């Protein structure tokens, strides 16, 4: 990976390294960097997840992630963004998504980062399947279910 060129908006099967994205968005004009890591949760609504299986429509998902990046730069001028989502089989506590945002001041970095995860859950074609001890299910429309976070 080391010498590989960093893609700021990517869907990958490789484990995610948050430090790379912090480094990517950091620059002299930035006064704040927020880093969101979405991790695989073991218990959801009393059911135990053994692992998660993620899949994506990769070319469209990367395009949509890049569009979120453009929207953030318009809404919060001076920000820099990287968003990467992992797919494939993920174990408990693995990082599924990393969002790094830098901005001149911290408020914008927090707000833009939350905007990014909300948009991912609405428009980016990525799906997760919860694998339980006694079954499995594709999860959909989570953002509209209260208490799903």
């Amino acid at each position, binding site marked *: 990976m080391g010498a590989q060129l960093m893609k700021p908006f990517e869907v990958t099967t490789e484990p995610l390294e948050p430090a790379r994205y912090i480094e990517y968005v950091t620059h002299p004009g930035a006064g704040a960097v927020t880093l969101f890591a979405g991790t695989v949760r073991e218990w959801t609504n009393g059911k135990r997840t053994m692992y998660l299986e993620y*899949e994506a*429509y990769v070319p469209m998902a990367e395009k949509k992630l890049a569009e979120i990046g453009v929207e953030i730069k318009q809404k919060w001028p001076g920000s820099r963004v990287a968003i990467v989502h992992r797919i494939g089989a993920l174990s408990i506590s693995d990082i*599924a998504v990393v969002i790094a945002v830098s901005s001149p001041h911290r408020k914008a970095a927090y707000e833009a980062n939350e905007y990014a*995860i909300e948009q991912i*859950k609405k*428009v980016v*074609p*990525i799906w997760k399947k919860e694998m339980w001890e006694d079954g499995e299910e594709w*999860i959909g429309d989570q953002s509209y279910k209260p208490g799903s976070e």
Partner: protein
Amino acid sequence: MIHLHYFAGLKEAAGKASEDIQWADGTVEDIVKWAADTYPAFDFSAVQVAVNEEYVLETESVKPGDHVAFIPPVSGG
């Protein structure tokens, strides 16, 4: 001919990730009807459609060579 792409539960219901079908002319609504008839095990009511990697309305026309993806409610993050 058009290229169809299936994901998540629809991929499992169809037993394949993609297929090509003959297509002369029609709208997104026509293709959703075709898919719902072909794969009755899957509920298309909440499915959005993307043509050439962009979300479109049901009234959009689909031309030979297009890539049509059925997008069930997403659950990334």
